[in-house]
């Protein structure tokens, strides 16, 4: 018994160290955002915030990094993409679960087959296609593809199979409700928990996406948050440590808020995603 307790203490210590490892880089980032470049050069690590937040903000305001533009573009893209992806994936899953049609099985097989293909490997064709139709600096090029999200359809189907009773659908039919109305007023409410989970992950993935936006968006006013962040690698920031830390902090602040508000659901969602059956 005593040995087990000792081992347990070891486990707790290991877990606390890993926890600190998770937070430490962000802590350094937030604290250094409030310190002057000179202070950081003297001593790169401090646990105590300083008073240079406003000065760092001033330095940042004179440069290309524009957190507000990045924020708004990212919000527009992520919100629209999430709404479209969740709605249409549920609709597609409904087509797979509730109706008996000839192509149903082949269609589901197709979804499984393309589920893992990342958009990155088809980016050359995608870019050239968008270039030809004049959509390279159009945010729609990053929003519309969300309607076809094989992974989300798969997840929605797996959730819908056991939780949607087709008797309810049948009784709605007897009451004279149209198929599309049945979906919107009966099926969607039942799918709410699954939709919420998928919405969080779609939102975060879309928000964090760097490759495609970087390929498609060339005008500064269209830059998303991750592209803004990538600008910090440039030479004009070489010596402005305080400002760089502040810019990084601003870029992840919304994510931190969302994460700590929804962490319970997010963790549960990750676990759920793995039990895909």
């Amino acid at each position: 018994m005593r040995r087990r307790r000792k081992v347990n203490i070891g486990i707790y210590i290991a877990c606390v160290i890993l926890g600190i490892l998770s937070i430490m880089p962000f802590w350094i980032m937030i604290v250094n955002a409030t310190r002057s470049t000179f202070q950081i050069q003297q001593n790169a690590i401090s646990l105590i915030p300083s008073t240079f937040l406003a000065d760092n903000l001033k330095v940042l305001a004179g440069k290309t990094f524009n957190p507000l533009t990045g924020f708004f573009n990212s919000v527009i893209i992520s919100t629209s993409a999430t709404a479209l992806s969740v709605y249409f994936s549920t609709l597609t899953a409904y087509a797979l679960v509730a109706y008996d049609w000839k192509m149903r099985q082949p269609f589901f097989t197709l979804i499984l087959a393309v589920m893992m293909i990342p958009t990155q490997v088809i980016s050359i064709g995608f870019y050239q296609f968008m270039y030809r139709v004049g959509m390279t600096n159009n945010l729609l090029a990053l929003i519309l593809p969300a309607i076809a999200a094989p992974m989300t359809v798969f997840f929605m189907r797996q959730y819908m199979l056991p939780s949607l009773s087709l008797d309810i659908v049948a009784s709605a039919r007897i009451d004279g409700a149209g198929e599309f109305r049945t979906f919107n007023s009966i099926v969607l409410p039942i799918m709410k928990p699954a939709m919420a989970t998928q919405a969080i992950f779609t939102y975060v993935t879309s928000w964090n996406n760097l490759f495609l936006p970087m390929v498609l968006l060339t005008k500064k006013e269209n830059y998303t948050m991750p592209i803004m962040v990538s600008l910090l690698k440039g030479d004009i920031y070489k010596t402005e440590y305080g400002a760089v830390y502040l810019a990084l902090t601003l870029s992840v602040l919304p994510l931190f808020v969302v994460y700590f508000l929804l962490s319970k659901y997010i963790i549960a969602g990750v676990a759920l995603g793995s039990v895909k059956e």
Partner: protein
Amino acid sequence: MPRSQIQLKRKGVSYAKYGYLFSLPFVIVFIIFMLYPTVFTAVIGFTDFKGVVATSFNFLEKPFENFIGTLNNKTFRASLVNTIVIWVMNFIPQISLALLLTAWFTNRSRKIRGQGAFKVLFYLPNIITAATVAILYSVIFGYPVGPINDILQSLHLISKPFDFSTSPLAAKFVVAFIQFWQWYGYTTIILISGVLGINPELFEAAEIDGASPSQTFFQITLPCMRTILIFTLITSLIGGLNMFDIPKLYIWNGGPANTTMTTSVFIYAQAFSGTYLYNRAAAASMIMFMIIAVLSAITFYLMRDRSEIRAKRAMKRIEKLRKGAEA
């Protein structure tokens, strides 16, 4: 779905058309934004399409020239090797730590508390924008001034600042570490939920038979998780083959000696920064596409009727344990 069929027949109306109708938006968008770009990428791979203002292209006389050229390209080969080396350097510690944490957290006799809070902390880095994480780490591992150099110097482990971006091994190590740091929490949660999905009767049977926690872990938990482990391995490998944000931004464009150049960074550099060799980039993309297609075919095969296979296997194990107990 026999139930729905019965209903359909009873009503005497066919609802099949709604199946087509409701999946139509998906199919249309899929064809326009996924299928067409895929075919287009493949086609470009067989052409002479390059240059920033080029809009027309011709098919090459030797159709596979771009593919052969890419496969013989030293930078492409190096980037493929880098991608795999960095992935291995991240995956082995990641899966080991995740398994260890899973063993600790699911051990029924230890009852580790605060698991929820630990999971929230371990998963945190995964949700943060990879671009931000890459730049943050490049400042943290900064040279000559940076937190890590500060710590190492004050501990007297090094006498003067160490440049983590010019040493090939150190640069790869940092990129692999960032990947590990971002993903071990995710893998741990997946594995724990995998263990929780195992039939509890198996564990009870093992307990009755007097199996030790480590015996239970190695002889029941691990074998039952084989599919989920392979799934984790393949999805991680596919993700690793697409690694872009961290290697691209930690050291700009893969570093001075291309030490952290991955295949995605290579493709990006070929097509979009300076050279505009769309045909070569397309050929490299299709090579990656083929590799990923094979890997996802394996996952696809594994996921087919996974629950059924798992249920069968669980029954067999229980049967075996019973026989063992009787003997």
